[in-house]
């Protein structure tokens, strides 16, 4: 995959990409700490380590494009432009959350941003993305839709049905598989028959590539081709991006299935943010201090979001029975 920085990326875009990735990282690192407080209930699946995948795609998208996400959705939300305060409030289950505190970490959505929702059912999202693709096709405005999923989701039948339907209907849909090597406590080496998710996609008749998910620029290029293809009306594509999750499957996971040093090694030698920084600074595209100032800006933004969430009131009890239906 390319070690060159794609020429079409402007300075502003590079800063934007870094800011999004850094925001995701800081958001998750901070949640990992805050969760100890016991104020956040339920399952929280952190995205740290996989930032380049979400941002590498979403840099090509606008609010008119749709994504559907997974149980590990914080990164997808931030990459697609969801409000960080609203997300934090939602994860804390507070009034003012993006979903009024009724959804939680696994059900964050923001329809103004074309974020059609995180999904706590593995394989739940891809069929929805094909449907949004049908709508996009009819609207003829060149919008595209993308479904995120993990290596484990590539074993869920609904995902294959969605891939085949997208091919049959030629919907402008991207199937993005983030292969972080594990589904919960089980390795992809065991659970993914062929260990070749892109190959599965080709079996349904769509182009599919495998990219190094920690290389933002490689991801950006692969996504760019697939998005362009979809916008041209040439149908769906699959991108399999290999990456690593830095934390447990969910917070509290002792990770007995992992070699002790696995994550540490990745953090040191294969971190997508470090790589990005080395590349852009090394190639004199951005001065380090600009990235540093983004770092501190982001730190402040996340800190403010946490404080705001912790101070916020719970939803009003009346909310228990609202929003079940539109009409009553």
């Amino acid at each position: 995959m390319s070690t060159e920085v794609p020429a079409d990326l402007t300075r502003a875009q590079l800063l934007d990409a870094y800011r999004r990735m850094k925001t995701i990282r800081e958001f998750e690192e901070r949640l990992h700490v805050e969760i100890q407080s016991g104020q956040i209930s339920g399952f929280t699946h952190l995205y740290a380590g996989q930032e380049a995948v979400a941002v590498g795609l979403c840099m090509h998208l606008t609010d008119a494009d749709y994504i559907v996400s997974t149980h590990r959705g914080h990164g997808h939300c931030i990459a697609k432009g969801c409000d960080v305060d609203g997300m934090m409030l939602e994860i804390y289950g507070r009034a003012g959350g993006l979903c009024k505190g009724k959804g939680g970490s696994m059900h964050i959505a923001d329809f103004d941003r074309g974020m059609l929702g995180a999904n706590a059912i593995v394989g739940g999202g891809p069929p929805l993305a094909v449907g949004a693709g049908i709508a996009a096709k009819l609207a003829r405005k060149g919008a595209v839709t993308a479904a995120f999923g993990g290596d484990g989701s590539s074993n869920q039948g609904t995902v294959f049905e969605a891939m085949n339907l997208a091919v049959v209907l030629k919907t402008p849909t991207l199937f993005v598989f983030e292969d972080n090597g594990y589904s919960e406590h089980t390795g992809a080496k065991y659970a993914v028959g062929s260990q070749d998710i892109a190959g599965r996609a080709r079996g349904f008749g769509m182009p599919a590539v495998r990219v190094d998910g920690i290389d933002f620029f490689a991801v950006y290029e692969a996504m760019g081709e697939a998005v362009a293809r979809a916008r041209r009306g040439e149908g769906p594509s699959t991108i399999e991006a290999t990456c690593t999750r830095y934390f447990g499957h969910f917070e509290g996971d002792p990770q007995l299935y992992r070699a002790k040093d696995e994550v540490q090694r990745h953090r040191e030698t294969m971190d997508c943010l470090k790589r990005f920084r080395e590349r852009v600074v090394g190639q004199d595209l951005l001065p380090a201090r600009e990235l540093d100032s983004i770092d501190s800006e982001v730190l402040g933004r996340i800190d403010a979001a946490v404080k705001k969430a912790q101070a916020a009131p719970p939803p009003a009890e009346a909310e228990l029975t609202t929003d079940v239906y539109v009409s009553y």
Partner: protein
Amino acid sequence: MPQKSFRDAINEALFLEMRRDPRVIVLGEDVSGGAGGTSGQRDAAGGIFGVTKGLIHEFGAERVIDTPISESAIVGAGAGAALAGLRPVAELMFADFVGVCLDQIYNQAAKFRYMFGGKTRCPLVIRASMGAGMGMGAQHSQSIYALLTAVPGLKIAVPSTPYDAKGLLLSAIRDDDPVVFFEHKALYPRKGEVPDGDYTVPFGEAALVREGEHVTVVAIARMVGFAEKALDALAKEGITADLIDPRTTSPLDADTIYESVEGTGRLVIVDESPPRCSIAADIAGLVATNAFHALKAPVVQVTAPHAPVPFARELERAYVPGPQRIEAAIRQVLKD
């Protein structure tokens, strides 16, 4: 008023609404038919019961979408398209197939609005044929509306006449919430008066099919006609009943049932599905909770047995509650 079949009434509703609203699409297996065939003829099926016949000629393959055998993708795509601004009508060839796509119905479409804090709507209609009586066996004959009536966020229609079928489907497509619309296979050829133009039948309003004194009979879908037969027989003896067709089980117009029971004091519920956690049980429970003091006798539930639908004609006939069983139930409730 013109006489039309249940099938044609539904077909007409689809034509009318697809003309009126460009956001309406239809998708499912063989909804047109003939795609990829060697005759080159489209609309080769029009749905295996002919309900979507002709649509593709007027609305084209972009709005009348034939799909592979992938119910999760069909319903999920419908739900996703609804989130993205369309008003899809997805077809499940047989309601029994909810088994392979329930998640997209009950964890996805039904819950979006609530999970997402009221920030979206999912105006999806799922049409599904249901019911026994055609010798289609255990996996193609079930009446599973109770299973979905139980799901908060879904609305459920179970029409019994061509008039209601057309009016309820038009309401369903215009409704901003997900609706599952059940069509009893045995009713497709049944004819009735159906106006040509646009009209709607509201959800949550039961039809008082007949008024009477001695007993309240609540019947669903095909059972309404059977209940009428039973009441015709009893009329000769001067026995009359309020016959109530809920038309939608969610929302359920319980008040109309309560009011009738206040008058009659006796209740018979006729439901084609097996008894456990059924609509019959649901209504009996609601009345025992909310109209108890009006009851003069035990509620009688007339349902299929707690068994799958058998294939053999004679067994299937015994499986489905018929006019005789309904008549006997009414006589019994009057004795108590």
